[in-house]
């Protein structure tokens, strides 16, 4: 009986740790996305300030390739959209992981209690 409860407790703890790890990963990803969004918005602002006569180059590997201003603007807009959707996805993930963490926590407390009960019972019977 006691072994059974202990096993349950351990697997639940492992699950909880895994969820916690995923949660931290998701939060870190959210932060990276936030700074990427910031950077792209800055670039967008700069592109909007440019005159049609200004040349735009895109760094691809070690070389600069000339690009049309409209094309560059489109690219940045697309990227901002992509990052926004990624942020939404990551935030949904964070909330769902948060919920999961809570349920695992509750389960852990439950298992811990039944483990202690089983322990005291076996102590008495001895």
């Amino acid at each position: 009986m006691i072994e059974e409860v202990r096993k349950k407790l351990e697997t639940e703890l492992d699950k909880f740790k895994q969820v916690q790890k995923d949660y931290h990963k998701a939060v870190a990803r959210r932060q990276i996305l936030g700074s990427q969004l910031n950077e792209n918005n800055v670039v967008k602002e700069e592109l909007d300030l440019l005159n049609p006569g200004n040349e735009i180059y895109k760094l691809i590997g070690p070389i600069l390739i000339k690009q049309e201003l409209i094309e560059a603007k489109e690219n940045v807009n697309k990227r901002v959209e992509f990052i926004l959707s990624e942020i939404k996805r990551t935030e949904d993930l964070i909330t769902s992981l948060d919920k999961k963490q809570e349920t695992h926590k509750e389960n852990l407390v439950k298992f811990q209690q039944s483990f202690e009960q089983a322990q005291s019972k076996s102590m008495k019977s001895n």
Partner: protein
Amino acid sequence: MSEISLTEQPNMFQIDLNQLDLQQLTMFKQQLDQSLSVFQDSLQSLKIAQNKFQESNDCLDKFTPDTKGKDILVPLTGSMYVPGKLINTENVLIDIGTGYFAEKTISEAKEYFKRRVSYVTEQIEHIQTIAQEKSKIREITIDIMETKLQNLQKDAAQRA
């Protein structure tokens, strides 16, 4: 992610620090220490960025039409240079982020760097105000912790 503030704000609990026990206060202080060190780090990187923009801006001051045709040394690697001549003193290429470079005239470039410097300065000031508030809360927490400790010691002395 928890927020700590001196003033009342929506969606935030008000906590009387005097009601917390020593352990809770220690945890609270640790939390504050952590966020303060994050602020210190970001302040430092912002200051580095500010310096870089300022440096680039200062560099443009030396880029006058008189320098056209002057000899320069072009760095090929960090330790190897080839001689060259300056033929274009009207335009510069500026890295505007995420791999994009824009060709700008000297005055446009200066405008750009001015904009960047003021943006970064704004961010620095913003972080500084938050950091100041947090360090104030930290001091208050330490004060309360000390009085609590003294009270504990007094109690122990009385009992003895």
